[in-house]
């Protein structure tokens, strides 16, 4: 299909499977990697890509997923360091043009950027949302003054 991209997703948890289902529905070529076969249950009937059962921290699993051909890689396992390893392989070894990682620990984001990945940090994102939401209510005096 013209305009279709080859996308590798490392980690098939809630975020990984959600991304995989949505992007597959859009017509892109998908490969999802997870070491736990049960994790692939999260893939819906819309998903028409491939599953690779393997440890994303082992190069052999990434090779099996043909990461060297990928246009985009998502590193979205539950472990920051595993995601860092995927980012390193994708950027340093397989020269993938666009790589995004989920990073739980905000203080580690610098490392991911250093290796050439964009990051999304659930903690920071949620805090930003919460602060945006609460902004309009931050008018004094509060209840105690009533």
């Amino acid at each position, binding site marked *: 299909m013209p305009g279709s991209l080859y996308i590798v997703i490392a980690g098939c948890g809630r975020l990984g499977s959600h991304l995989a289902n949505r992007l597959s529905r859009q017509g892109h070529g998908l490969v999802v990697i997870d070491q736990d076969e049960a994790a692939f249950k999260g893939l819906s009937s819309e998903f028409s890509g491939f599953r690779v059962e393997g440890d994303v*921290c*082992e*190069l*052999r699993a990434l090779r099996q997923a043909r990461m060297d051909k990928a246009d985009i890689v998502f590193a979205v396992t539950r*472990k*920051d*360091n*595993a995601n*860092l*390893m995927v980012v*390193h*392989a994708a950027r*340093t*070894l397989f020269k993938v043009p666009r790589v995004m990682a989920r990073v739980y*620990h905000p*203080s*580690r984001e*610098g*490392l991911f950027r*250093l*290796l050439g990945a964009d990051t999304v940090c659930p903690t920071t994102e949620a805090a930003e949302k919460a602060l945006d939401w609460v902004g309009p209510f931050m008018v004094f005096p509060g209840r105690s003054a009533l």
Partner: protein
Amino acid sequence: MKVLIIGEGKVLYFLTRTFLAKGHTVGLVSNDREECARLARQLKAEIFYGDGSDPALLEDAGIHGTDVVIAVMPQDQDNLAVALLAKKEFEVPRVLAMVNDPENEEGFRALGLNVFSTIRTLASLVEQQAELEEITNLIPVGAGRVNVTEVLLPVESPVAGKALQETGLPPDCLVAVILREGAPLVPRGATRLEAGDRLVLITLPENHGPVLRALTGERR
């Protein structure tokens, strides 16, 4: 020297003991609470419990004043994170990371990290020993692109009695030192080799086998 070791298990314990015995100041980080308590009783080292790839913990563990950081965890991704933090964020002068999967060696090096693979060293030792019993030592150096080997010239060696320049050794190898009756001798082209000599060789992995065969005979 101030050394900070991040790891677990026997590697962490014996590495720490070795550095302490040499008189260095050692701090160690383990993510196992019970192990930390045990090590605190066994070792005269500063012990920190927690995730070694957490920058805040590394700061608590005094990484700013540290000369050497060694990452020896059983997961390569953790060693990668610690080594990158130590080198790039905290600018520790010397950082060393263990790789468990030998396949990761090259990629980690590409990031400018100093790494070592115990598996690869062990595998090459075993391979070479199995091939030729005369070899007593084999050390891969220069990222595994150069071998340093110590080999005994047996009585049946085809080069025993020949001058070094007549031995017809393959190119790209060097007999660096001859140990004859315990004394070191740096050879020249005219130096004669004798059975019983121990040679310290510099070879490349691709000519390693041919060089050894030329020195010890074709019988194996």
